[in-house]
């Protein structure tokens, strides 16, 4: 699987795919997409990186990658953003929206507008946390499959 064509294509395509995934996650409250979709795109870029490299390279690349930490941070952060609604309201209440908070607390003008990044309240936070969680989960599944398949092929 590691021919020169695939290696060269990976070098060109992987940064673009990762940037596109980050864009989908960060603009989840303005454009189509969101945490799940952007995380899946990001994880597909990392999967391309995984399948186009040798076993030792992948192992040294992803040995320090804090995938389980990212997954846990995503889950706990999502629940924490949901629990912010307990400050006077109910679970999953969007308390930051229209409150003038520094990050993502701006007001959205009603009607047709070009979309402002500094709006959305808790939605961008939840998008970021869910995207982190999805990319860590899918990447770790692909990584485990890849490592075990490669290991058994070496044992044959």
């Amino acid at each position: 699987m590691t021919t020169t064509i695939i290696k060269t294509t990976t070098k060109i395509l992987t940064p673009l795919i990762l940037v596109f995934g980050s864009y989908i996650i960060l603009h989840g409250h303005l454009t189509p997409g969101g945490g799940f979709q952007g995380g899946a795109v990001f994880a597909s870029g990392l999967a391309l990186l995984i399948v186009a490299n040798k076993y030792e390279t992948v192992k040294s690349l992803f040995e320090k990658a804090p995938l389980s930490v990212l997954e846990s941070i995503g889950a706990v952060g999502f629940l924490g953003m949901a629990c912010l609604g307990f400050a006077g309201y109910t679970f999953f209440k969007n308390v930051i929206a229209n409150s003038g908070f520094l990050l993502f607390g701006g007001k959205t003008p009603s009607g047709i507008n070009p979309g402002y990044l500094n709006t959305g309240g808790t939605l961008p936070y939840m998008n970021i946390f869910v995207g982190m969680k999805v990319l860590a989960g899918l990447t770790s599944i692909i990584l485990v499959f890849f490592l075990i398949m490669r290991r058994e092929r070496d044992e044959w």
Partner: protein
Amino acid sequence: MRTSLGLLAFIGFTLFLLAAMISIRPFGEPPHREMDDWFITHAQIESSANNVVTSIVFDYRGFDTLGEATVLFTAVSGVLMVLRRKEGMKK
């Protein structure tokens, strides 16, 4: 006997599906549209986001997304638990 029974069941189920298809509502006319109109008119102001789908998924129906995230977490931890090797392969 078996064949005729199967044929009978097939014809009956086909008639049922045809009747359901004839009596279906036309496209774009749901029986209750109050909630849709509420989302379309109020989502941009209440949750301050242009993307109404995201504001429904993460704000109005956050519990659904919480369950989805839990399903994904369970799937990932199950795969990692089943496919774990003894001498520390870092996942």
